[in-house]
């Protein structure tokens, strides 16, 4: 029985074995598929001189800053579009048109206008976070139960009270979904923007430098690090959202 539970480990181990085998074939193999020992050494080296931590923290800081901007802007814009038909009619076409351009497609244009520095990256990351926030806030506010709105009207709530006491709490689960999506987008876009705009610190920059120097071991470590961090962030936010929203009766 115990052995059966380990079946899932077979393929990953085979894959790692094949990688190691390929690295030992010849010089070309060792160049493309670096031996596991080298990856281990590189990990120790990167951890030792703090390079990994510095770049990881830079990427994380960029993601959080962009995410924060995107969430604030996205909730505000989404709420405006959901609550005011006039604003919706004026803003929505432009918003949906601009939304069609892939995030990374903006990079060359933004780089020409704002340069290769922090401002460009921050703008791109916050835009990536903005789209899902606007869409989910809009949907969440639109789908508020009519009966809840009516209660608000019966109690003669003002516009602001209606928003704060009825609409926003009802839209929170949808907004939380938006934050989860925005987080994933922001993380990928932060790393992606670092690949394109080679200045400053960040996991993407670390990878690009490693590519230029053909240091496959560093790239492997970065890729694993990016995947792991993305997974951990999503997992933590899901837990957090569930905990913060536990006051809501489940339907």
């Amino acid at each position, binding site marked *: 029985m115990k052995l059966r539970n380990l079946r899932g480990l077979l*393929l990953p181990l085979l894959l790692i074995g094949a990688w190691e085998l390929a690295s030992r074939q010849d010089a070309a193999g060792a160049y493309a598929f670096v031996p596991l020992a080298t990856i281990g050494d590189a990990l120790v080296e990167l951890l030792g001189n703090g390079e990994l931590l510095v770049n990881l923290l830079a990427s994380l800081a960029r993601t959080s800053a962009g995410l924060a901007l995107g969430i604030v802007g996205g909730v505000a814009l989404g709420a405006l579009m959901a609550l005011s038909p006039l604003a919706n009619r*004026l803003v929505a076409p432009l918003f949906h048109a601009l939304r069609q351009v*892939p995030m*990374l497609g903006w990079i*060359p244009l933004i780089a*020409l206008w704002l340069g290769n520095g922090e401002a460009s990256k921050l703008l791109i990351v916050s835009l990536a976070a903005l789209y899902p926030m606007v869409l989910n806030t809009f949907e969440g506010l639109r789908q508020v139960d009519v009966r809840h709105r009516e209660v608000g009207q019966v109690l003669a709530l003002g516009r602001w009270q209606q928003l704060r006491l009825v609409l926003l709490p009802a839209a929170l689960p949808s907004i939380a979904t938006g934050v989860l999506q925005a987080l994933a987008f922001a993380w990928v876009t932060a790393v992606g923007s670092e690949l394109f705009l080679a200045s400053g610190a960040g996991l993407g920059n670390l990878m690009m430098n490693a590519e230029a120097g053909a240091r496959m071991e560093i790239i*492997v470590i970065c890729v694993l690090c990016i995947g*792991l961090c993305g997974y951990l962030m999503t997992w933590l936010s899901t837990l957090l959202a569930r905990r913060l929203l536990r006051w809501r009766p489940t339907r």
Partner: protein
Amino acid sequence: MSPFKALTWLVSPLALLALWAAVADAALFPANLLVPPLEVWRSFADLLATGELQEHLAGSLSRLSLGFAAGALAGLAFGTAMALSDTVEAYCAPLFHTLRQIPSIALIPMLVLLLGIDETFKVVIVAKTAFFPVALATVEGIRAIPRSHFEVAAVYRLRWPTLVARIALPAAVPAIVTGVRVALTRAWVVLVACELLAADSGLGQMIEMGRQMLRIDVVMVGVAITGVIGFALDFSLRRVERRLSGWQVAGR
């Protein structure tokens, strides 16, 4: 909606266009940084007339279709196998869900080192991007089929190929189409990103060249076309999605 109301949808795009033209006209910024809309239109017409645009577009789209077809079909096959067989799931699920966490963009430097910057690299990364959403949607779509369907199949003693082709796949089609739509949009984004970083042809390469030569007009044309293609792909699959879900509801 009255025609007048429909016209209000055009207000904000037109306002932006007018503002852009006015600011460019007033020369608040250097002319090579803020190109007037008319000039962007002219370079679009130029690129179209010389056939340059079509060439880049054809390059990008052929890569997209090749990589996407390979990735989506593999995802469909793998997803079906994983949903229907406990053995396949036990062996593959952990690896699948681990690899799924790695964003395609992050794999670009690695694949460049492994495969070089030729066609193979782009097709492989598009296939990888398409594989995971389609496989995941297939698994979830088939898992969501009511047990009774499979019980009927067992009663009729349907054989495996029949079970897959006549019951599992048709019932899971709406979920799969949604997965395909997500996969296609992502594959397009990733392809353009790859071409921006490393390519000798394609829409992304056109944009990158424009950037290096400081031809903002070319960059803007490229960005706009990227958006239009992305929208067209998403829109057409949304239509398919709606048709299929209509068919499902009507069938029940």
